[in-house]
């Protein structure tokens, strides 16, 4: 058996005090091999109290997913003693991921410019809802606001209903991943310059960058895609559920016609054109609907794909957890997140050289590594740590 290869960011040291906006940033850096220390206020991160919870427990699955593989310490860096300790931690760190409100760090003597003067090789990644400047700088943000203001929400849902949010926290989690990209760009830059820097990452701009070219398109056509259910990424009812079929190119359309036995209603060669089919949807759709109606969704998907037509079956959550494909890929894995509680978490976003890159360890308990970090690494005595605890600093 070969030894597990070293992960790409082995040796990198990251301090992570991010809230929900940026928790996935530290997670992916840890997945990639960085040693990430999760820094929480002594009362615990807010996300430890966010749903979903493990049934019958106060354990937040939200926190567990986004903090797996990190080490955990507590610190109130708003106190003068806490700020001093933070400096000592930053001396040993390559990057600090933080999500304080704009200006809040300066207010407790931790202005990023001064931090960089003292720790010139440090990368400070600041993640905020709207950015470090601008008229909305001090506005309150949430995941929903990010998804809405970033331009993704307006198109989601049925035309006759309000826009509808996706599950989870896709705006915040996406921003965390964008912040990880920014951090790594800065660390790559540091290889040449030897210098760190202060990064300004916003939820608003991270989400706006994923709004499917709406701005470029609008700037030319003065038009935008209205909310229209599944639109031309159509959904069809089958005997036991639904499938999605995305037929944009002529090759796929002809393969579909062939499969349906070239129905008489659809022989017009003009229908080879996507735009023509879009305009004549009322004519085209019923034929396809009838064809799929009495087949099973998985059979439709398999046969369509065999014929080179992009069809995927609509899977219920339980079917995502357990199907031949996710099983073969190891999409999910078991992770013991606390004593007596093993959960099935997705095993990671990436594979490198065919090895899955994902969380290898459970999320930290509150202050679990205080002793290891403060005493073992910073050289504090056990008595000093106890005193800090009594003062509420850790």
């Amino acid at each position, binding site marked *: 058996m070969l030894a597990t290869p070293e992960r*790409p*960011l082995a040796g990198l040291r990251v301090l992570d005090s991010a809230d929900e906006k940026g928790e996935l940033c530290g997670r992916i850096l840890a997945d990639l091999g960085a040693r990430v220390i999760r820094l929480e206020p002594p009362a615990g991160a807010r996300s430890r109290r966010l749903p*979903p919870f493990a*049934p019958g427990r106060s354990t937040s*699955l*939200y926190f*567990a997913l986004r903090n797996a593989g990190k080490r955990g310490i507590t610190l109130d860096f708003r106190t003068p003693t806490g700020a001093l300790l933070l400096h000592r931690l930053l001396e040993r760190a390559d990057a600090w991921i933080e999500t304080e409100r704009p200006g809040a760090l300066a207010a407790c003597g931790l202005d990023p410019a001064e931090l960089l003067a003292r720790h010139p090789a440090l990368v400070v990644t600041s993640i905020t809802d709207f*950015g470090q400047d*601008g008229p909305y700088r001090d*506005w*309150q943000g949430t995941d*929903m*606001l990010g998804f*809405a203001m970033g331009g*993704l929400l*307006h198109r989601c849902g049925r035309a006759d209903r309000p*826009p*509808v*949010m996706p*599950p*989870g926290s896709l705006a915040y989690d*996406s921003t965390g991943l*964008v912040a*990880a*990209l920014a951090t*790594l*760009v800065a660390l*790559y830059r540091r290889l*040449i310059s030897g210098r*760190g820097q*202060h*990064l300004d990452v916003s939820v608003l*701009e991270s989400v*706006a960058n994923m*709004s*499917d070219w*709406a*701005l*470029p398109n609008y*700037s030319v*056509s003065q038009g935008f895609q209205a*909310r229209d259910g599944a*639109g031309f990424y159509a959904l069809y009812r089958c005997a036991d559920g639904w499938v*999605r079929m995305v037929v944009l190119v002529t090759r796929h359309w002809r393969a579909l016609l062939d499969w349906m036995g070239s129905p008489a209603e659809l022989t017009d060669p003009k229908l080879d054109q996507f735009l023509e089919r879009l305009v004549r949807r009322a004519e085209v759709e019923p034929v396809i609907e009838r064809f799929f109606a009495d087949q099973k969704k998985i059979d439709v*998907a398999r046969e369509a*794909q065999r014929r080179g037509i992009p*069809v*995927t079956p609509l*899977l219920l*959550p339980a079917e*995502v*957890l357990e199907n031949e494909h*996710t099983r073969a890929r190891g999409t*999910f894995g078991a992770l013991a997140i606390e004593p007596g509680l093993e*959960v*099935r*978490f997705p095993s990671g976003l*990436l*594979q*490198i050289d065919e090895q899955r890159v994902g969380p290898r360890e459970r999320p930290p308990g509150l202050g679990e590594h205080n002793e290891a970090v403060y005493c073992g690494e910073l050289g504090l005595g056990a008595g000093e740590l106890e005193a800090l605890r009594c003062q509420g600093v850790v």
Partner: protein
Amino acid sequence: MGAEDAYPFRGLRVLDFGVGAVGVEVGRLFAEYGADVIKVESQARPDFMRALTPAWMNPAFASSSRSKRSFAVDLSSERGVGLLHQLVRVSDVVVDNNGAGVMEKLGVGYEALRATNPRIVVFTSQMVGGQGPWSRWIGYGPSTHPVSGLQYLWNYPEDAERPAGSVNIFPDHLVGRIGALAAVAALIQRERSGRGCKIDAAQFETPINLLGDLFALEELAPGSLRPAGNRSPRGAPWGIYRCAGPDEWCAINVRSDAEWEALRRALGSPDWSGRPEYRTASGRLAHQDELDARLGEWTADRTPQEVAQRLQAEGVPAGDVQHAAHQLADPQLAARGYARVVDQPGVGGMVFEGPSFRGTDLPEPIIGPAPLLGQHTREVARELLGLSEPEIDALVAEGVLEEARPFEGAPGWGQA
């Protein structure tokens, strides 16, 4: 090099086999920070986004292929594959999101690339991954929604059996960013190891990983996972409210009792809001329907921007549900200089998206036009392959290399 160049990726070369969004966006992020990003295409195998419109140029394609060069080569010819491998020798990153097995068939699969250049970092991404019984399945961003749980969960709770769907291509743009960050991590590692690697991101696993806590709950309590729509157990009122104007909406999230009191102040403390059961989160959660109705009456007479201003002034999270027209007028995006105007040949003046992040030691991203197919074939062949003009002419005549065809007349986008 003389004066220090602050672009972090200056000196790196990326060969971009991306199509659509995923791979193309990885290339974009490298190009913006100084890498020489070369799109590898051909008349027979163009980036399909390019080919969606008659002039083979349109705003969406241009945005994602900004600031790149285009090298058009026929990879069905042995000579073409040979030339490509010559390029791989002087490149650092190869990006691909073609179907599983396509690159191997063209003679540019990972093993072949690595044999040519052991330092090459390869990012590849398929809809449902390169391995597994469904790995040959094809599709687009929206095709990942049904197989990742996103389709089922992205719905109105009262109508869960009938999927609502979305025309969004999520997670394509996000997978592009994941690809870029993983490639940069691999480049950092390469400084130490001297070796490249192969990075693989299955597109459908991105939503699955982001929804991992929900799947864990489903496993622990089967059947419990249902669409939640616009509500949340985190607080109330919490949702999307109709505003004045056609299809205008705002988002409001009250996360605490203090924010509820702030919301009341913003509304001028109307009588209905004074009920004692509204004072606590549990009380508000139990009376969401009536709260939403009352709040919706108030928002219905106001523009979403007005609602956001009024509520934010009191510290309540509220914002407008923006579409592209809003984005262009948004004061925050304007103050941040988000919209970048570029003169794009084949389109004209158009707006590109600005960056998602900036840094004190990062220059402004390079945001320039996208190339025509084969626009830089000759230049790349000369500079990087060391070919003479007569050699290039001969290869173009044989159809191994392809050069840009100038636009006939002015068939710009929108005149199709």
